[in-house]
């Protein structure tokens, strides 16, 4: 059985989407000078509320909306403590992650009445959308068609993010704030407002990422289901030097690691080793590329 085939690429595209979306969210906060380790928690909250939304309304798109709203709220909480209270971004980020884990598990008991995981086959997730012309192209067709709207959306967002960051005045302000908040402030840019916007954008994107995890392909919520993807997304941001196109590449790499690990499970390699693959891949990338995290400039404001 071949390991590399079109189906693997298709599952790569599907699996890399949460990482890409979260990484794009992380990119905005990184550009604003905030070292954001809370992607994990924001995504997890998004995952939970996506399922809860479908459960309550029966409509996956409303679930998506709820996921985005919840993740953004959590993101703003993070933003408040880091930007306004000027707490250490790492500690606050960890707190958000711990809070998200505890809260979603707590809420799962309250809402669904179960522990561990919730799965109801009758719940309708995001439908796979078949692209009319593309699906008929060999190889590329299998790879790029029949995905949820979030997958296509992710590619679109990459382009939008690029335009926004490098060709729009606000993107200029964002980059200025991250690089030298004192200078930006002296020019009349409202530094805190820019940072809050970046945090909100991050929340929205992480909400989308979480929803892709929990309500596309299968509709389910498992305790702690993000399983470190938020940190892998963070590494994608670092590896991609907070640039949308490079982040796309980095996320593809990590998505491939996830897809390969799924595929290898069928071959007789123990599941634990196979499950390690994405984490090992991430470590290898970090070691080989010797990248530095973006400078944290929140503390440097007066």
């Amino acid at each position: 059985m071949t390991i590399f085939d079109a189906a693997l690429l298709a599952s790569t595209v599907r699996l890399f989407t949460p990482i890409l979306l979260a990484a794009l969210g992380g990119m905005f906060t990184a550009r604003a000078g905030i070292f954001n380790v809370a992607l994990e928690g924001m995504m997890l909250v998004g995952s939970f509320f996506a399922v809860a939304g479908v459960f309550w309304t029966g409509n996956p798109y409303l679930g998506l909306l709820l996921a985005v709203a919840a993740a953004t709220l959590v993101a703003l909480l993070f933003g408040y403590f880091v930007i306004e209270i000027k707490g250490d971004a790492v500690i606050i980020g960890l707190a958000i992650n711990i809070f998200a884990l505890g809260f979603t598990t707590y809420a799962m008991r309250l809402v669904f009445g179960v522990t561990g995981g919730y799965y109801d086959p009758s719940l309708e997730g995001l439908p796979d959308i078949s692209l009319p012309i593309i699906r008929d192209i060999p190889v590329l067709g299998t790879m790029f068609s029949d995905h949820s709207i979030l997958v296509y959306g992710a590619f679109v967002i990459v382009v939008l993010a690029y335009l926004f960051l490098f060709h729009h005045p606000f993107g200029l302000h964002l980059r200025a704030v991250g690089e030298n908040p004192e200078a930006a402030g002296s020019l009349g840019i409202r530094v805190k407002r820019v940072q809050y916007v970046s945090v909100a954008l991050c929340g929205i994107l992480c909400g989308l990422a979480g929803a892709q995890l929990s309500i596309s392909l299968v509709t389910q919520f498992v305790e702690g289901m993000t399983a470190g993807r938020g940190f892998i997304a963070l590494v994608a941001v670092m590896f991609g030097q907070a640039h949308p196109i490079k982040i796309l590449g980095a996320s593809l790499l990590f998505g491939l690691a996830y897809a390969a690990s799924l595929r290898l499970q069928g071959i007789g390699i123990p599941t634990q080793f196979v499950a390690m693959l994405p984490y090992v891949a991430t470590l290898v990338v970090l070691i080989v590329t010797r990248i530095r995290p973006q400078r944290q400039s929140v503390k440097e404001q007066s």
Partner: protein
Amino acid sequence: MSMSADSPAKTQRIPSALIPILVVLILTIMALLIGAVAVAIAGKSPLLAIEELIRGAVGTRNNIAATLTRSIPIVICGLAATVGFKAGLFNLGLEGQMVVGALASAVTANALQGLPAIVLLPVTILAGCAAGALLALPAAWWQTRFNVPLIISTLLLNYIAVLFVSYLVNNPLRDLSGGAAVPQTVMIPEAIRFGVILSGTRLHAGIFALLILPPLLAWIFRRTRLGYQLRMTGLNPDFAAYGGISVQRMTLLAMAASGALAGLAGAVQVLGVDFRFIDNSLTAGGYAWTGFIAAILAQANPALVVVTGLFLAGLEVGAAGMQRNTQIPLQIADIVQAGIIFMIAVRQRVGQWLRHILLSEQRS
């Protein structure tokens, strides 16, 4: 020019040493309020929740013992985190280090069971420490050599270590006798198991670690050259390097020590509670993360870590009891713990505010 409008009698002198403790108290109360809100959202009475919480933690002799027993791995992990913090390092890999330490000690105890107990016990403990240190060292090395941030590498190693250990316990090291549902290793020899010190409970001799380790660590930090070097590295690595301290060496040493302590926590759990390595038992308990939070709350003060560790252990034990009696999910404890960390961020402001209100004004 006094800013206090109070009458002279009120502007008493409260020793400023008391302020950090008051701050911790206020922060904890605020965090508990967050928990109360979460309970109210669930439609239950917060007052009832608190009552059950306290009863579950310290209401009966057995409950107190349960709290104390649970505090052992939490405090030791908290001390592990503290060693890291003192050197300016965030060791988020405590869970993985604890797990490999536990497995290593379980395996060593069985592999060398021919040895007399008086030798086997320290060797077992050392094996646990060594395993934890060995897991932590690569992360330290990658940071000094390749700029790989510890925060991320230790976290990734967590996942990897837990998975690896799970594999070992599921396959080559599995105890196939007895037909247990959960994968586990063979039990360790009776001779080296920690004895129970309170009959009818699981409170074991490991509690003495809480009496020995904190003063030892405090002494090392305050009174030895190594402690000075570690502290200065933590306060300002550029300053330390300028003064002739090898920051690289300090990072490696601190991480090794931190990992060793986390490994010790695992070994102590095996020796005192489980008497074998049980897949998932250490991660499910969340001891390492609670220990980490205890260290943050204690501001990396070894003696204070015992206090915060006991408090958080009580919180968790009490929450479990609360859940049994009221059906309120025990994850409330996690929410309160997260709340505590948020409050810690506000600590500076709270401290300043307290100083402003309580201390009589001092001219600069």
